[in-house]
């Protein structure tokens, strides 16, 4: 592998107007917008784009398209999302997502996405958790647009297909190592290498968009793909930029016990429910109105309470059951065919006959690189938001923030397409009106190459697989569904040791062609950055809100914590940032007691 990139002969430099890092839903929605605008756009992805984790999304994309209910209203969707976020979602961003959503969903349909249909030919919508009519007063809504239970697959393939149509450049199976930052603190692209050939290049761009998805692999048990290692956040944190709300991790109520695979909330939307070892539908006790369709944080905590109080199922009493058999074979085969398949493969049960063993499992990162609704990334300077020129982020990697402390089911796919589209439009306007960044120097590029070079030169050190296990066990033990100060302090200490090890990894195999061990070492260093940001943020937020539940601080504390947390990776300290309560068209929704 080349150790140096020479600016003067340009042999290892590829230049684009816009570079998108990540080929999942948000990245490919951004690139589609840019490719259509005629800008020279490239997507770099460490896997072939349709292998990205968006493919695993099942239940659907939530949006008030007024198909199931002609009187549905995006403002109701906005209310639900604000409430779901436990009031630290930014209301200007949520307003934008919910009101622009229908356009973005219709566009997907026009592109060919094979949505399921109602008899009248319109897009099928199913009920999902946390959905209501009339600002919580009109009962359960059905607002999640679905393609059976394979909506993510259908969406991702549709976006890839349309990028092929528009001629987007793809650098597939290329790995982005680090951001290149010039002396003005602008981002001018990334250092990346071809996993197949080992060629190391400086991918130079006027706009760099991080669409690298989540990092669920910081936990030992997760619904996330093996590739979800927070590569974008790793890069921004190493570059010294802030990360927002990193303590907020969603534990999905229904991961398959033992395997971690996701079982969509759509199962409960279609009428399934959870039972404990007594066969009791226990959610009736915890959320008398919404029951099994309460917010995901509420359902996950209720499940853990049942298990802790001895009403778990199985010989170890360490999971509960999701009952679906009463829905009948017809509904299960037509609405939830993928779930039937997954249950048979990973839980060895046929949901038509038996319940599925499930347990809360790490699922989604609500935090990320803070951005505005145009995807522009910012960092903190003396308490003020400071735009980072040239840097954008979208999708799960970003924190715009529409999910706050707890994301509603179906809002992730909507987030991807709405903000991918918005970032694409903004970058197009900005670059066409003469915006852009200055060049980087040889030293700037060398600095961005240093992590890769030192790994390639390692002669001794720690094994990747060992250190990864330690990291995942530490996060699982100390930063799970319920958290406590003394345990988290222990976890933060352990992470200091793990950092030491992850900075001294030994890459024994130095070969070039498709060296997956090299990729895994670089991914582990990204996981460590995300884990540390999570741990310190979680330890410092001494209240319970949304997905962040502390047994030593069980109450929500609006006086001190009705705000975003902003983690500073240089000082390893947590700052605060105001939540936006100023939507444009509607009155802000003030914080209320949150019950379902």
């Amino acid at each position, binding site marked *: 592998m080349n150790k140096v990139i020479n600016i003067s002969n340009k042999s290892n430099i590829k230049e684009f107007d816009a570079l998108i890092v990540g080929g999942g839903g948000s990245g490919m929605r951004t690139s589609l917008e840019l490719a259509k605008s005629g800008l020279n756009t490239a997507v770099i992805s460490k896997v072939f784009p349709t292998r990205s984790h968006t493919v695993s999304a099942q239940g659907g994309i939530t949006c008030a398209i007024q198909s199931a209910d002609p009187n549905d209203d995006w403002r109701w969707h906005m209310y639900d999302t604000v409430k779901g976020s436990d009031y630290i979602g930014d209301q200007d961003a949520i307003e934008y997502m919910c009101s622009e959503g229908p356009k973005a969903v219709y566009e997907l349909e026009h592109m*060919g996405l094979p949505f399921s249909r109602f008899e009248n030919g319109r897009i099928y919508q199913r009920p999902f958790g946390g959905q209501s009519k009339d600002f919580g007063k009109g009962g359960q809504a059905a607002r999640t647009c679905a393609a059976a239970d394979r909506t993510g697959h259908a969406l991702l393939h549709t976006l890839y297909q*349309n990028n092929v149509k528009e001629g987007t450049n793809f650098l597939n199976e290329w790995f982005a190592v680090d951001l290149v930052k010039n002396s003005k603190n602008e981002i001018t692209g990334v250092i990346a290498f071809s996993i197949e050939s080992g060629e190391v290049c400086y991918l130079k761009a006027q706009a760099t968009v991080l669409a690298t998805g989540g990092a669920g692999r910081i936990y030992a048990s997760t619904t996330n793909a093996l590739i979800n290692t927070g590569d974008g956040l790793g890069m921004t944190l190493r570059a010294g930029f802030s990360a927002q709300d990193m303590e907020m991790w969603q534990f999905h109520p229904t991961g398959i016990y033992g395997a971690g695979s996701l079982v969509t909330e759509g199962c409960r939307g279609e009428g399934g429910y959870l039972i404990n070892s007594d066969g009791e539908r226990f959610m009736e006790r915890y959320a008398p109105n919404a029951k099994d369709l309460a917010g995901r944080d509420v359902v996950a905590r209720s499940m853990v309470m049942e298990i802790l109080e001895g009403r778990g199922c199985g010989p170890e009493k360490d999971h509960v059951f999701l009952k679906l058999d009463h829905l009948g074979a017809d509904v299960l085969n037509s609405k939830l065919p993928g779930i039937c398949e997954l249950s048979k493969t990973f839980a060895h049960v046929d949901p038509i006959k038996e319940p599925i063993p499930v347990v809360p499992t790490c699922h989604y990162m609500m935090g990320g690189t803070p951005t505005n609704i145009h995807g522009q990334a910012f960092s903190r300077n003396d308490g003020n938001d400071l735009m980072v020129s040239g840097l954008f982020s979208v999708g799960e990697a970003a924190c715009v923030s529409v999910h706050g402390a707890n994301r509603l089911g179906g809002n992730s796919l909507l987030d991807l397409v709405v903000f991918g589209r918005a970032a694409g439009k903004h970058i197009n306007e900005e670059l066409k009106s003469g915006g852009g960044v200055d060049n980087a120097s040889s030293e700037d590029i060398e600095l961005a190459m240093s992590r890769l070079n030192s790994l390639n030169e390692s002669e001794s050190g720690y094994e990747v697989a060992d250190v990864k296990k330690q990291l995942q066990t530490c996060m699982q033990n100390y930063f799970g569904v319920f958290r406590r100060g003394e345990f988290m302090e222990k976890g933060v200490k352990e992470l200091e040791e793990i950092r030491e090890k992850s900075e001294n990894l030994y890459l*024994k195999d130095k070969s070039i062609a498709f060296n997956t061990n090299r990729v895994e070492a670089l991914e582990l260093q990204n996981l460590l950055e995300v884990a540390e940001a999570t741990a310190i943020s979680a330890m410092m937020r001494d209240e319970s809100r949304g997905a962040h539940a502390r047994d030593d601080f069980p109450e929500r504390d609006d006086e001190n914590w009705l705000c975003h947390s902003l983690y500073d990776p240089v000082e390893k300290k947590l700052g605060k940032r105001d939540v936006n309560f100023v939507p444009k068209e509607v009155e802000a929704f003030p914080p209320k007691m949150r019950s379902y």
Partner: protein
Amino acid sequence: MELSVSLYRYNPEQDKFPYMKNYKVKKPEKDIMVLDLLNMLKEDDATISYRRSCREGVCGSDGMNINGKNGLACITPLSEVLKGNKLELRPLPGLPVIRDLIVDMTQFYEQYEKIKPFLQSDTEPPEQERLQSPQDRDKLDGLYECILCACCSTSCPSFWWNPDKFVGPAALLQAYRFLADTRDTKKQERLEELGDPFSVYRCHGIMNCVSVCPKGLNPNKAIGEIKSMLLTGTKEDKIKVVGLE
């Protein structure tokens, strides 16, 4: 009890030729997936290379040849494939090998792009969605679910012979997915591009594609539909019989 795993190894920088390497591992108590076993082997020998991502059978990364049959490592339990405690893992057949179990899928993707795998419509999109009856939408079931893992095309002798000219079962399944979509208005053009002697007609109904598809799809049936559309057209679309006018 011990498992004997024979693994196809090839590193272009070190090996003149590929070879099979034997690994002995303690047979796990639980019935694990082939991918879990590979991950165990990789913990001890980090040089072993293979693709993987979702680990639940939806991303299509880890197609490989498992004891002689193509399949996805992540959803193939050992109990289904072990032959007397022996397991042989090879890359998907017929494509160039980059390293170990990793093949160069360029030809496979080129065939996919060739069939124009995107909706084409002459009509202006309405303000809302295009309407489609549930019955018409049902016609896409069994087609759109393809995960592009290439298990089918790389098990097809016709694709081995003519990977540049025969479109192959995976891409033909997608060709039919758009032919069957009531929202697509380019049926005639799509058929014309498939009417040569190779693109579709090299399929001789061997049905390996059907036997290996990890998603239970039936490319052979879709190919049959395309052939019959090519020969007779469809009444409602008044498609001309390609090659016979």
